[in-house]
């Protein structure tokens, strides 16, 4: 059995595994350094890390080493098995997200026909881990954080999926690769040079997707499950050392994955205008283009995070049910009408 690259199945699988194992920590490091450390510092009139490596680039690696050296503490009354499993579940969910993200005509770990469906499904798994962490910590702050995360999931998974529906209708496919193709080969009123990035036709969908992603990632206007000044860290308040590092990595890696999803669905993905869709050179250039677009989207996510105050849980629910869900339903209706008429 041979895959797209003409290699044996085991060889291709091990290459994919290796790439995935390198890509995810690198992505987390890159976003963490660029945005969480440096950009946040510049926005707050600070300098950020300076000493570890050139411009402090190795700061996060030093932090990781520090976390590894710390004692692994379990609260005495914690449910030990669930407590240990929780960060792994959260991280696994963000690892699984990377499986379907296409970065070139062949550069994709697994080109699933139900790509979007799969991505939405596994991204919700992380909340399971958060609930496990909140419950197993046997800490009231953690429990409140876990409960808030559960409430947030129910409220925000819906608009997230409904926002994606518009793209799926327009592209006629759940396959992420096909969505990129639909954008590459689409045209705007007969003008097809840059294809048809869905951000133009699905702008409302893009907005709803970004807002819901912000809630899904528990970034600031919706970071009640973490809420440093109220719940002092919420669900991960009892975690130390390596387990905390896993939570941190999962948070940043999921932000990266969601930026990648937004890029694929709304910004044209890896395709470069002027190239043939299946040109092999795009397997090399595609990832670079993707990375640039991902960084732009991630910049917006973190920009909002450092700028806005936090909503209250009931205000968030009100916003989700009264604004986002009706708006995304209307978006689907309008998209459907256009699809049928045009």
């Amino acid at each position, binding site marked *: 059995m041979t895959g797209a690259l003409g290699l044996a199945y085991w060889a291709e699988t091990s290459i994919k595994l290796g790439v995935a194992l390198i890509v995810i920590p690198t992505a987390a490091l890159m976003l963490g350094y660029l945005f969480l450390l440096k950009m*946040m510092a510049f*926005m*707050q*009139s*600070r300098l950020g890390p300076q000493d570890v490596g050139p411009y402090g680039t190795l700061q996060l690696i030093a932090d990781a080493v520090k976390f590894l050296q710390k004692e692994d503490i379990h609260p005495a009354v914690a449910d030990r098995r669930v407590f240990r499993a929780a960060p792994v579940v959260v991280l696994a969910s963000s690892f699984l997200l990377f499986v379907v993200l296409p970065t070139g005509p062949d550069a994709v770990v697994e080109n699933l026909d139900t790509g979007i469906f799969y991505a939405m499904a596994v991204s919700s798994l992380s909340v399971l881990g958060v609930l496990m962490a909140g419950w197993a910590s046997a800490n*009231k*702050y953690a429990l*409140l954080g876990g409960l808030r995360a559960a409430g947030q999931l129910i409220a925000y998974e819906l608009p997230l999926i409904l926002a994606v529906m518009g793209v799926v209708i327009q592209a006629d496919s759940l396959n992420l690769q096909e969505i990129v193709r639909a954008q590459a080969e689409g045209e705007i009123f007969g003008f097809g040079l840059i294809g048809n990035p869905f951000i133009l036709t699905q702008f409302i969908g893009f907005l709803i997707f970004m807002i819901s992603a912000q809630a899904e990632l528990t970034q*600031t*206007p919706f*970071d*009640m499950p973490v*809420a*440093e*000044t*109220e*719940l*002092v860290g919420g669900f991960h308040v009892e975690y130390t050392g390596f387990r905390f590092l896993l939570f941190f990595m999962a948070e940043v890696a999921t932000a990266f994955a969601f930026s990648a999803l937004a890029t694929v669905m709304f910004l044209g993905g890896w395709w470069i205008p002027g190239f043939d869709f299946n040109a092999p050179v795009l397997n090399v250039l595609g990832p670079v283009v993707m990375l640039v677009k991902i960084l732009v989207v991630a910049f917006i996510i973190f920009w909002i995070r*450092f*700028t*806005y*105050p*936090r*909503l*209250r*849980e*009931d*205000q968030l629910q009100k916003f989700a049910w009264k604004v986002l869900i009706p708006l995304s339903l209307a978006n689907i209706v309008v998209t459907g009408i256009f699809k049928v008429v045009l």
Partner: protein
Amino acid sequence: MSPPPTASALREQQAYVAAQAADARVNVELDTGDMTLNIGPQHPATHGTLRIACQLDGEQVISAEPLMGYMHRGYEKLCEVRTYPQCTTLINRIDWLGSFANEVPFILAAEQLMGVEAPPRAQWIRTILFELSRIANVSLFLGDMGVQVGALTPVFFAFRDRERVLNQIEEVTGGRFHPNFDRIGGLKDDIPRGWIAETHAVMAKMRGFCDEMEDLLMGNEIFQTRCRSVGVIPGDVALSYGLSGANLRASGVDWDLRRDANPGLAWDQVDWRVWTHPDGDSFARYWVRLQETREATKIVDQLLDGIPSGPIMAKVPRIIKVPAGEAYVSTENPLGEMGYYVVSKGGLGPFRVKIRTPSFSNISVVPWVMRGTYVPDIITILGSLYFILGDIDR
């Protein structure tokens, strides 16, 4: 110009209470046990070691009780075994963000007992330093309130700009935080050369900071939804709990000791106004403090231009002995009314000092105002009441 205050808060509060009652009826049917949540003594929102024991139903607060004393340092007792000049070192550390303002009422009480009055130049410089410490103190609150509602950035701006004011205080007194500069009968030193022009420039910067906070935080919709009609304290409740300072003025009570009971400083020499807000919610408290900071910069600007010439110290004996008697002097400190009741038996040091600190009274309203709010509101209400732990426990 700042947005005019709205008076709809009371109606919103009533709707809020009605909604709570409806929730309560549902809760009777789905009865769940209450949870005790212990906020503090180690908690980022308590600015130190305040502890609040809450009874929660889900996220709703049934009762909240502030428990204090984790940082009690016994200042009233310590003052009894010190001479008058030594006391100011301690008193500095009560409200550590606005230290100079702490010294002034104590020194004024001692002066009143001795029958000494500071020369006009000393009074003017005292008032300037007093207002500078108010600006240093409250500007930190203006940023810190952002952290309480989850915005991390404003507090760094506040730290950056507060440093400019602290530099000015340091240039005169030699101390950033604890100047220990006020003396019975005047001040330790005169202001240095060039200081007036520099301070004018800093005041312009601080007005810019106030504008920035107004744009960045107060104009933010999420900030407004989090703070408006949350933690409403009506004027009569505020008075009955002994609230003072901006917390009282934010409840619509027009009361300011700087204007009403000026105990011998230069506030009556300049043109300024007292800001009040009718709503009494967390937003009103933020709004009033922001206006007051801006007003304080204007007071400082006017005072700087009119410092009279003359000596900086009145004639006082080298060894200070205060004649027997008792005096109570209170001033409008950054946090509210701070008063010292000094009893003297004629010795080198006071016989008894009772310190009336504003934060202690301000925090007493917590059980009343917290009932029926949600856990995130605890933090914003605490933040907007603005207390300093040293000022509660002293």
